[in-house]
């Protein structure tokens, strides 16, 4: 059963760094796991906690939020906001019975295609070990 488990992971990436990093990975023909579906936002500070909760509610097994490194956010403080929101959100989902490891925040710059591949692969391993999200609708 669990051998067949293909996690569904939502990536929410900031346009200026992490999404560009994913592009970089793509143009350099680096493979990253197809389990990660990436949505682009202008800044990690745009990631409304409601988006993350909605993703879990809809059955995502993991959510990966990625933004620019500290000091590099194009809107100056967006990533610091994201960092604090994700910290609180991890606590929130923990109280709701969802393993906090299913939510990850990572800084990935536009030139870090390889880092993106590594991050997504590692995250996939973590999620595979955790198994399907407890909120996944049984089908």
């Amino acid at each position: 059963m669990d051998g067949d488990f293909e996690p569904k992971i939502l990536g929410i990436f900031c346009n200026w760094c992490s999404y560009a990093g994913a592009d970089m990975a793509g143009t350099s023909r680096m493979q990253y796991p197809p389990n990660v579906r990436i949505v682009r936002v202008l800044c990690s500070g745009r990631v409304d906690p409601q988006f993350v909760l909605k993703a879990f509610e809809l059955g995502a097994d993991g959510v990966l939020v990625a933004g620019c490194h500290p000091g590099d956010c194009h809107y100056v403080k967006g990533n610091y906001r994201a960092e604090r929101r994700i910290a609180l959100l991890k606590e929130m989902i923990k109280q709701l019975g969802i393993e906090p490891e299913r939510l990850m925040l990572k800084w990935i710059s536009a030139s870090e295609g390889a880092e993106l591949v590594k991050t997504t692969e590692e995250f996939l391993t973590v999620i595979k070990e955790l198994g399907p999200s407890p909120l996944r609708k049984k089908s």
Partner: protein
Amino acid sequence: MPVKVMFVQLASCWGCHQSLLDLHETLADVLPQLEIVFWHTVVDYKLHDVEKLPDGSVDVGFTEGFCRTEEDLHLLKLARQKCKLLVSYGTCSTYGSIPSLLNLYPIEEALSRKFKEAESVVEGRIPDKHVPKMLEHVKPNREYVKYDLFLPGCPPEPPLIAGVVTSLLKGETPKLKERTLCDECPRVKSDVIVLKKVKRDFEGIPEPEKCLLEQGYICMGPATREGCGAVCTSAGVPCKGCMGPGPNVMDQGAKMLSALASIVDYESVSPEDLVKAVKDVVGTFSRFTLPSSIIPKAVFKKK
């Protein structure tokens, strides 16, 4: 002709009904215009008193509380059947309110805690005879029946109730105010807030006029709907969010979590500091609205 009304109590603390009585003299004007056909928390009505009413024969019904047992659910459905207009009265009925934080625990654990483990219990047992079956978790009443009007508040403030009752008696559709609490709060706000420290309510004494959030207290105003008259913040107490989510807010807890995270000073408050300052994230931000949140209850590992 008097207006036929019924007041229904589901699982609740009676605080909303109490608030109705706090209308004092206004009640003297209102009561003669009402014919109360059911109010089992005040007069000894029985379930069959509702059951035998013709469908749609009651003009207005008010429901206080949420459905904790199958009997609550039965009564709620009956109320919908018998009333032309159904008002969700108070935050328990509208969003779940504080007692629904029990959605964070399995019901068996809650029953065992209350009836067997509580410090005051001697030789406890979980009652199983002549009691209605417990529902697994709390859902907002609107997921069971259709409502015509929502009147939130834990409890709704008497002037809010008076406004609604008066317009109903005139045959008008009551209109509730819909901005955020900060809009009606009289405290002085700055354009930019930068918090050097997040304080618990008991720390220090708040300055009398300045916005409480700006002073570092977790005030739910930005994520909360107006309508209570900002009674708490006017009295120096941070808003706990009892009116439920403000306009365009899907999840009050997530919204406030977001707001707080974006106003702290990043050099003074690390993510860990913030988590420590908040302590109980769900209990602080979703105190009144857990069953209406995007994730309305905790999931439990099967043993």
